[in-house]
């Protein structure tokens, strides 16, 4: 296999607070290949977005990378500062945020927002950038793109705006796109379109995608592999079909069982007892031990085994326990 | 464990105050403590001015023109008397005039804010509770008034009130006219906050319940709604006090406030400005510093109070 586009090794993010240091991302490792869509799934507060922000260098101080490495196309980028990191943003790493209603500057025409991004990163003329802006809008399926470049964001619907946001994230042809809950704020009817669009564009260009979501439906529909996060740690990583149908980690299993999509036909949805621990109160050993039906003293004391692709970070992985 | 509840000694009011969050944040804020100390010292020395001041500057018998223009801490060339902050052209002790001047400044400031507060709360409660045309008229008036800087409104009211006062009473009435003018220019803030809170509280169950059991509107407004708006009112009052003190000083400095017979800090600065070029800097400097200390510390206290009582603002 070729070198991965993105490679994260043992990444930790720390935030110093009054009550001590919390670690919203704790020793996470994964790779994303060109053209591959990796889904990052977990409850809110599990550290999904924080990992994405760390990759693109937009952690809000005092949050910072405390440990680990981030490699992008063979170049180490976790220690890059200021302008060097800025040059990568937009150019090599595109980002799509959750809420298209607030992601676009309301006072600038969308054409201007596209051209300024291209002119920042690409050695092209303004006229060329304007031409490409129209093409970019056409590509994301905005009808009448030639006129709509002169429109302001408020003149678009939510779904159309998210298409504009995707056009903006992709306009400088980045090799990695981080999509942070790109469909959460959208109508259900529009969600599938946006996911399909994102998948098509990235497949065509061979772009690697980190798709952050809490929606198992989106994961099932769009991703090639999936990483399950719990309390800042990776619980399970593997091909999407395996993880969804044969989850090995008790948490993933609980998560799948509590998803309407996966538990079709069952009369009641499963519930995982308790709640995810607060980040300043993660228990020793496995972070999930207090909620896990299979937990033993080993889980409460020893650190969980190191996780490899296709495995779960669990002493007692579930074997062939089907959800569906 | 006994079956009887152990009687708990009720906390004293002082204990409650000392245990409160407000006092806790106060202890943690050096700015607030220093400001409060400065305010306390200034207010006390204003209140007890007759006891502290070495001379009564408004008793002609105690004045000696020969003492005029004595620099601070230097014996006078003719009389040999020495003054902590020097004397002015008439031989009045500057320190004493400041103490008496501060009395007037503080009295006008506090009275004006109190007037504005009572007026604002009353109009705010009424417009929030009654609604309809009453509300429209009160709040539109507030809007129009808010279009203009309050100092201008105060000047105008002062001018009109002066015009209405018979000439022979003008100096005597000046202080009261000043209070009226500053108070009237400053009620809008209170009214807006109180009205907003009233609109929220009015529809809560307990107010409906009070209405059902036949409480009169006045009782409901005073007993149930008013207590809910006290903390924002306190914050506005503190900040308004700083503004009122500055407004009073400004008006008096401009010669449309406290008369020379009852000089406030602003009047003293107005008088002192005349001696700036001839080198008698102390006549101007000490009143100016006092005014600054007073205004700044009240302002800082108000800032702190706003943050402490409502962290969501700002």
């Amino acid at each position: 296999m070729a070198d991965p586009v993105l490679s994260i090794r043992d990444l930790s993010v720390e935030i110093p607070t009054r009550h001590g240091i919390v670690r919203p991302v704790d020793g996470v490792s994964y790779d994303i290949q060109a053209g591959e869509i990796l889904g990052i799934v977990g409850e809110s507060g599990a550290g999904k977005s924080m990992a994405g922000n760390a990759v693109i260098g937009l952690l809000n101080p005092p949050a910072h990378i405390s440990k680990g490495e981030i490699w992008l196309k063979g170049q180490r980028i976790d220690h890059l500062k200021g302008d060097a990191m800025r040059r990568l943003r937009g150019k090599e790493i595109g980002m799509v945020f959750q809420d298209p209603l607030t992601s676009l500057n309301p006072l600038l025409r969308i054409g201007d927002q596209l051209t300024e991004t291209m002119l920042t990163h690409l050695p092209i003329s303004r006229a060329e950038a304007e031409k490409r802006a129209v093409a970019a809008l056409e590509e994301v399926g905005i009808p009448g793109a030639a006129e709509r470049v002169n429109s302001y964001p408020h003149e678009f619907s939510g779904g159309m705006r998210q298409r504009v946001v995707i056009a903006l994230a992709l306009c400088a042809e980045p090799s990695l796109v981080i999509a942070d809950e790109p469909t959460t704020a959208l109508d259900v009817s529009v969600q599938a379109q946006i996911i399909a669009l994102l998948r098509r564009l990235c497949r065509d260009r061979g772009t690697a995608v980190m798709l952050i979501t809490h929606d198992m439906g989106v994961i099932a529909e769009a991703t090639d592999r999936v990483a399950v996060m719990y309390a800042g740690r990776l619980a399970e990583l593997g091909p999407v079909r395996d993880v969804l149908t044969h989850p090995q980690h008790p948490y993933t299993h609980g998560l799948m069982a509590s998803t309407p999509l996966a538990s079709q036909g069952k009369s009641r949805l499963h519930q995982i007892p308790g709640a995810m621990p607060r980040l300043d109160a993660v228990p020793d050993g496995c972070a999930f031990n207090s909620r896990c039906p299979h937990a033993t003293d080993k889980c409460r004391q020893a650190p969980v085994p190191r996780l490899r692709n296709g495995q779960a970070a669990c002493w007692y992985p579930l074997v062939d326990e089907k959800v569906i | 464990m006994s079956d009887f509840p152990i009687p708990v000694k009720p906390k004293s009011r002082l204990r409650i105050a000392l245990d409160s969050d407000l006092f806790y944040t106060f202890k943690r804020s050096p700015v607030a403590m220093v400001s409060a100390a400065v305010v306390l010292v200034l207010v006390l020395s204003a209140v007890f001015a007759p006891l502290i001041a070495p001379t009564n500057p408004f008793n002609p018998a105690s004045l000696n023109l020969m003492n005029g223009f004595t620099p601070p801490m230097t014996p006078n060339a003719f009389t040999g008397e020495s003054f902590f902050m020097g004397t002015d052209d008439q031989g009045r002790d500057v320190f004493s005039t400041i103490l008496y001047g501060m009395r007037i400044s503080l009295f006008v400031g506090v009275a004006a804010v109190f007037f504005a507060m009572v007026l604002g709360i009353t109009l705010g409660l009424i417009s929030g509770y009654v609604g309809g045309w009453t509300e429209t008229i009160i709040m539109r008036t507030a809007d129009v008034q808010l279009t203009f800087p309050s100092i201008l409104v105060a000047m105008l009211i002062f001018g009109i009130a002066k015009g209405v006062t018979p000439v022979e009473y003008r100096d005597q009435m000046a202080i009261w006219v000043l209070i009226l003018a500053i108070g009237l220019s400053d009620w809008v803030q209170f009214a807006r906050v109180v009205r907003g809170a009233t609109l929220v509280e009015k529809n809560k169950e307990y107010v409906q319940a009070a209405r059902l059991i036949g409480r009169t509107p006045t009782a409901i407004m005073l007993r149930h709604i008013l207590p809910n708006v006290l903390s924002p009112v306190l914050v506005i009052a503190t900040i308004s006090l700083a503004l009122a003190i500055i407004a009073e000083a400004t008006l008096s400095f401009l010669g449309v406030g406290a008369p020379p017979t009852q000089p406030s800090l602003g009047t003293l600065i107005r008088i002192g400005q005349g001696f700036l070029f001839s080198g008698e800097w102390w006549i101007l400097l000490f009143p100016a510093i006092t005014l600054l200390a007073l205004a700044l510390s009240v302002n800082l206290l108000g800032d702190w109070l706003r943050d402490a009582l409502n962290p969501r603002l700002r």
Partner: protein
Amino acid sequence: MLAYIIRRAGQSALVLLIVGLVAFAMFRFVGDPIDNMLGQERTAEDIERLRAQLGLDQPFVVQYYKFLEGAVQGNFGVSYRQGRPVAEILLERAPATLELAMVSGVLAILFGIALGVFTAIRRDGWLANVIMSASLIGVSLPTFLIGILLIYLFSVELGWLPSFGRGETVDLGGWSTGFLTESGLKALILPSITLGLYQMTLIMRLVRSEMLEVLRQDYIRFARARGLRDRAVNFRHALKNTMVPVITVIGLQLGAIIAFAIITETVFQWPGVGLLFINAIQFVDIPVMAAYLMLISVMFVGINLLVDILYFFIDPRLRADRSGGH
């Protein structure tokens, strides 16, 4: 858009009518005009004749209408104190105040925005913190003390700049300007700093807090995530959005500058309308007070209206054209 502007203009006209009513009430009821115009030795006929001549025997509404009619034509009556038409005195004094207000306004806006942006972008820098602390003192410092302080420093101690008046002026067809002579320009420096400093502090603090708010917005994060240069993010994206709410306040501050000029003009004996107004209050010269009130209201209301219209050019959301597909 047109409907919005018409509605705002209607509201402005209403405010002016109310202010006109106040001004008229001052005229009519404060300091009896008959008393003021006729001396001590007056007869009943004199009073009757003057009442008829001034229209004081007519119904209130008619009098109010006549007053407004006069005011619109610039006829504000005769100053009790100077015995000259108020309009004439105001016109003579206006250039001094307008020039002072203009220079102060420009200073306040330029420095206020620049410092506000600086303290917002460098929010944790030591210089930004020093500026913020200084501005808190600036807000508590009464304008007249700033003026006195400047006079003491630059006129008394250093002797560099004049402490009063507006220096030599050049008459340009009824407009006396201080911009064309060295002494006129020198005389402008201290008063315009005094007048502009407070407004500058306000604008700076407002710009800072608005900009900090804007910098937290998603579209700023998105702009950064697209790798735009800091300059583009801060100025093209953040500053433009900051200015939307700031412009209203700046508009109001410009009006306030003309009102606060009263204080500065008194400190520096600047021969403008503010000084005229203070003297009018001291001597209860009602026609001058009323005229000043009307004049300043027209300015305030005019500026407010202008600001509202300006919004349409800054914020496309307000233009509310229906071309967008929804």
